[in-house]
């Protein structure tokens, strides 16, 4: 019961989606399932938020190492939730002044907008920017021309790094027209449109075959590993 019903839910949902691409009669079923999926996806955000709160509350109650940071996480979580769900500081939309919650959380000057502008933006974008430093350090330490494959990787990286900036123009821009294909900016295009396209296309074809095979195994009930318990 605990495994059979979920398996059939997956089979029905999957086949409905698949058939909706080919059979006009199944189109409305596919549409309905997609609509339900979208709402369930939004509820998954609530689940994610709930899981985070639960995990940090547990950490806090056990007084695990670094529990002080859990207070910060939980505090910022609850404040953001309160401001956002309550639409604190949001006036109604001009078009619908009669509806008190018609205003958008994203409006300029709102408390929620403040969190976006001065917390989420600097925090997330700086986190991403940190990688620029680590990639430089890694290039210095690990990017070694040890064999043919490594040399190919290295030379391609050089072509792309130089060809995608003004350095390419300065270094090879003087090449005569008949050798213009060897200019770094043109070489980088050639690399992307020929070699990179070939490599990535083969990877994509491989992934597509893998996705189709795995998907069909799930829809035919052969693969049940996603249900847990290990009896695939």
């Amino acid at each position, binding site marked *: 019961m605990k495994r059979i019903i979920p398996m059939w839910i997956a089979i029905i949902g999957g086949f409905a989606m698949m058939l909706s691409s080919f059979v006009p009669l199944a189109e409305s079923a596919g549409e309905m399932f997609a609509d339900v999926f979208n709402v369930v996806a*939004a509820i998954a955000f609530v689940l994610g938020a709930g899981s985070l709160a639960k995990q940090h509350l547990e950490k806090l109650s056990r007084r695990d190492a670094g529990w002080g940071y859990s207070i910060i996480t939980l505090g910022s979580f609850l404040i953001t939730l309160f401001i956002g769900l309550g639409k604190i500081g949001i006036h109604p939309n001009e078009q619908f002044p009669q509806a008190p919650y018609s205003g958008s959380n994203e409006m*300029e000057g709102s408390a929620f907008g403040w969190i976006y502008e001065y917390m989420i933006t600097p925090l997330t974008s700086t986190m991403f920017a940190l990688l620029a430093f680590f990639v430089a350090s890694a290039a210095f330490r690990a990017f070694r021309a040890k064999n043919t494959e490594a040399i190919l990787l290295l030379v391609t990286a050089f072509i792309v790094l130089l060809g995608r900036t003004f350095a390419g123009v300065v270094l090879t821009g003087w090449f005569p027209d008949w050798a213009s294909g060897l200019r770094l900016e043109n070489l980088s295009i050639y690399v992307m449109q020929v070699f990179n396209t070939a490599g990535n296309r083969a990877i994509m074809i491989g992934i597509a075959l893998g996705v189709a095979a795995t998907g069909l195994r799930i829809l035919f009930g052969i693969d049940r590993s996603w249900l847990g318990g290990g009896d695939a």
Partner: protein
Amino acid sequence: MTRQSKTWLVLGAVFVALLVARGMIGQGLGRVYVKRTDVTVKLPEAAVNNAAGAPSALASGSTNASTTTAATQAMETPAAASTASSSATTISWQEWKQVTPLEFNAAQKANPAQTEITLSWPRTIGLWLAAFFTLAIFSFLYADNPFYKIAESLVVGVSAAYWGVIGFWDTLVPKMFGALTPGLVKSLVQPSLVAPEKLQQISMIFALILGVMMLWRLLPRGGWISAWPLAFIVGVTAGLKIVSHVESDLMAQAAATMKPLFVSVTDASGATNMWDSWWASVANVLLVAGVICCLAYFFFSVEHKGVVGGAARVGIWYLMITFGASFGFTVMGRIALLAARVEFLFDDWLWLIDPNHFRGL
């Protein structure tokens, strides 16, 4: 005091000294100005009648509106909060739009007593906080430290709540609550809501049940109940992916690889351009050969020996070039992100540069 603590102390002192010095030179630094606009909106007649009649959702809504207005103002200029007003027929509030220091200076010059454009304390504090967070995360480059950990904890907490709030207001309210409790959504959130169809209501009941089952996961017992919505997600995703991947990543890619191995490029006069034709043909040959060789490398059902082995070896070379290109592009991307953060520090916060001519430097 450890060596690291001493270094932090020295770095901090130097930084604060530089900041103070910067604040005393020229126009100063790190301030945000806003322009006030008073907005008065007339309530629709039906709404006014309703509000006058009974303690309906709308009536409480009107009260709520004036409360939220006051909160907006409290965010900007606490002193002005009391000026918010809401009468039976109109509702009014104040809006603040960010303006440049240049506009503030011009307004001050024209009328030093003006109050339309003012310094926004919440936004100025926000800007300094944003600068602090940026530096706190960069401080990880020196060593892991409490500032970084605080920033990291904040990212997690704020982001999770932010996503939850957006999911609630943008999807759950218009779609699920709009179908299940249309009256409430219409009066409180979206007066333009279209009456839901029966089928829509049924599917949203289905979604609600699945959602509740999914949230069951948070409870200590009955975790298996969440397998049902998980099954729905897995099944629908599989059904969607099978078709799309086969169509766009298998069939379409195979078709795009079936290219002519000899290409004739003609110029404007209609004559064949030998060099261009040669390069275009070489490109097509390299592309087709590359895809086949890479696929040979991924084909593990045959031992990589002889022709297949040779092809697989060439395939590896292609893949190495592919990874090299990916590396180059990744570096490019990360540096652009770093540049954006440094621009923020130098421009928005420290006012060292003025690329957007906001301050007329």
